[in-house]
């Protein structure tokens, strides 16, 4: 299954990501598919290799899904890695996509989670997943 994104769809996703996540203090937001393709990135990724981040995140998510299966879960719908300054939050979008959010220690995890839950239903239609 190939994904073809129109200009309008990309613009729609960008609007949702900006409104809910960047405005809440996220440093950088990426939407990737599970094969590691980078679909949209927003925020300031100047010091960041976003292509590699997309590929590694997809793999990371896939690997944890295998861990989930080992303990009798189908998969984990979200992952969170905490660093000294920067944190990263991954959540599954529909069946085939991932939302990756980088945020620093001044932003609370709870806020990010809340905003993700608001943004997800608005992104899905653009990806052909309801």
């Amino acid at each position: 299954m190939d994904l073809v994104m129109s200009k309008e769809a990309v613009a729609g996703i960008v609007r949702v990501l900006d409104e809910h996540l960047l405005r809440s203090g996220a440093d950088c937001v990426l939407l990737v598919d599970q094969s590691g393709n980078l679909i949209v990135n927003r925020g300031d990724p100047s010091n960041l290799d976003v292509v590699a981040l997309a590929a590694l995140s997809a793999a990371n998510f896939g690997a944890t899904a295998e861990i989930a299966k080992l303990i009798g879960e189908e998969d984990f719908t979200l992952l969170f890695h905490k660093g000294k300054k920067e944190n990263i939050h991954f959540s599954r979008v529909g069946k085939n996509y991932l939302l990756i959010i980088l945020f620093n220690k001044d932003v609370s995890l709870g806020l990010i989670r809340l905003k993700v839950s608001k943004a997800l239903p608005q992104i899905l239609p653009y990806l052909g997943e309801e």
Partner: protein
Amino acid sequence: MAFIDLSKGEVQCKIVYYGPGRGGKTTNLLYIHRAMSEKIRGKMVTIDTKGDRTLFFDFLPLALGKIHNLSIKIQLYTVPGQVMYNATRKLVLKGVDGLVFVADSLKVQKDKNIQSLENLRENLADENIDLKDIPLVMQYNKRDLAEANIPLLSIAEMDADLNSELKVPWFEASALKGQGVFETLREISKRTVKQVSRKLLSK
């Protein structure tokens, strides 16, 4: 799963190097990474593991220029070849658009090549892909070892073992020295982009 972004005018495809363990998949990527200019290639990612086997995957993004105003971006992946890492191989195969099968020319690896190709066929079937339908190129690697008097499989024998049914293009290669590496990459990129654009046009 190819991804086409019409707002940026960009096509992204995923090509996976598959084959038995220690056959030279990573060496292919390393050679491409070394030989290409920084304008074309991105950063190569290898997941750090002990020893020289790939445990998860290697990753190298390339920008291959433009076709019909669409810029073509290709991402090369390798899989771990060792039999026991099948779960990882399946993960990396997710959304694959094109495949290079790197076969090991060493005589002692004859069965490993056949097993690995069979494993590829099964893993693709799990993703509902028929090996015959996906762009595929064979690479018979390590041909340079003939000079060192190491017993190698003949090209005819390898072709009979692996390619008698598929009849895909094949290349003799020495990934370590770079021979055949770009020929393989060129052919698989061409085939993959062709198939992706054909699918795109049929929509």
